[in-house]
């Protein structure tokens, strides 16, 4: 389908902030480390936008706390961790995602498809 690439971009644009909050919820991480964690969970941003502006916005909105610390053998890095406000945003965002996903699944006739498969 010709629009599939554009649709993936639009979908990512709506949830990438949530994904970043989720991957830094495990442990504090710096920029590239978060890209790797996203990739390990199957979410590649190749051909998509960068996470750096998004991290900047999360920081400005107070959803993450930052700290500069030495990395493994490398130069000091800026580590991002969830703030209390960020944790609340992650919980609220996860609920919204589930509700939206379930509704779309129902419309597309995918409800229970995983169980049947």
């Amino acid at each position: 389908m010709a629009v599939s690439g554009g649709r993936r971009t639009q979908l990512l644009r709506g949830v990438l902030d949530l994904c970043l909050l989720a991957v830094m919820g495990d442990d504090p991480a710096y920029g590239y480390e978060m890209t790797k964690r996203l990739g390990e969970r199957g979410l590649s941003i190749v051909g998509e936008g960068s996470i750096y502006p998004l991290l900047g916005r999360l920081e400005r909105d107070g959803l993450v706390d930052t700290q500069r610390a030495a990395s493994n053998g490398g130069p000091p890095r800026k580590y991002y961790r969830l703030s209390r406000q960020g944790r609340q945003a992650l919980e609220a965002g996860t609920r919204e995602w589930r509700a939206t996903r379930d509704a779309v699944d129902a419309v597309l006739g995918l409800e229970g498809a995983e169980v049947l498969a």
Partner: protein
Amino acid sequence: MSSFVEQCRKEWSRLGVPEAEANEMAADLEADLAEAKMEGVSAEEVLGNGYFDPRSFAASWAAARGFVRPARPARGTIQVRTLALALGAVIAAAFVALGLAFLFGTPVINRSMSAAAAPFALHRHPLPPLFVNPSGRHPVDFGTMVPPSLQPAGLVLLLLGLGGLGAILWIWRPWSQRRGGPSGFDQNVGMPNFL
């Protein structure tokens, strides 16, 4: 420093990002790209589409961090342009009105004023031949009050006015749409438009 980071630095400098913050962002970017390179990961995989447009990438990042405002025309510029367009529209409308008046007779407001004054005028002064209806039924035929020699001028004025109104509409439509449009990055999630 890599070429990409160097271009970002230039853009941050141009945008007036404080040097300490620009240094911090450049250092983070440099370290991430170096680590990715050591692991055999391309810069594009780290930066996404931003890799192909360093200036937009740098501007989006700086705007997301609140160092610069997304580019928008200054308020004064908007007001001057709006006033100029409004003035142009009024002048063009006046040309159209004059053109119509010259082509088809006096404007309605003059007609009613003349009509109201006509009975009194008839009693006091004889009308010049121009204002006398040859049929003799009505003392004044307002439809012929404009001399025929003015009709070409009326046509020119009408065409100029209509052309002016069309041009103003043509300028105003895309400009007014741009005023409310996107401004460099997505306001909802902070992702650049090139995502």
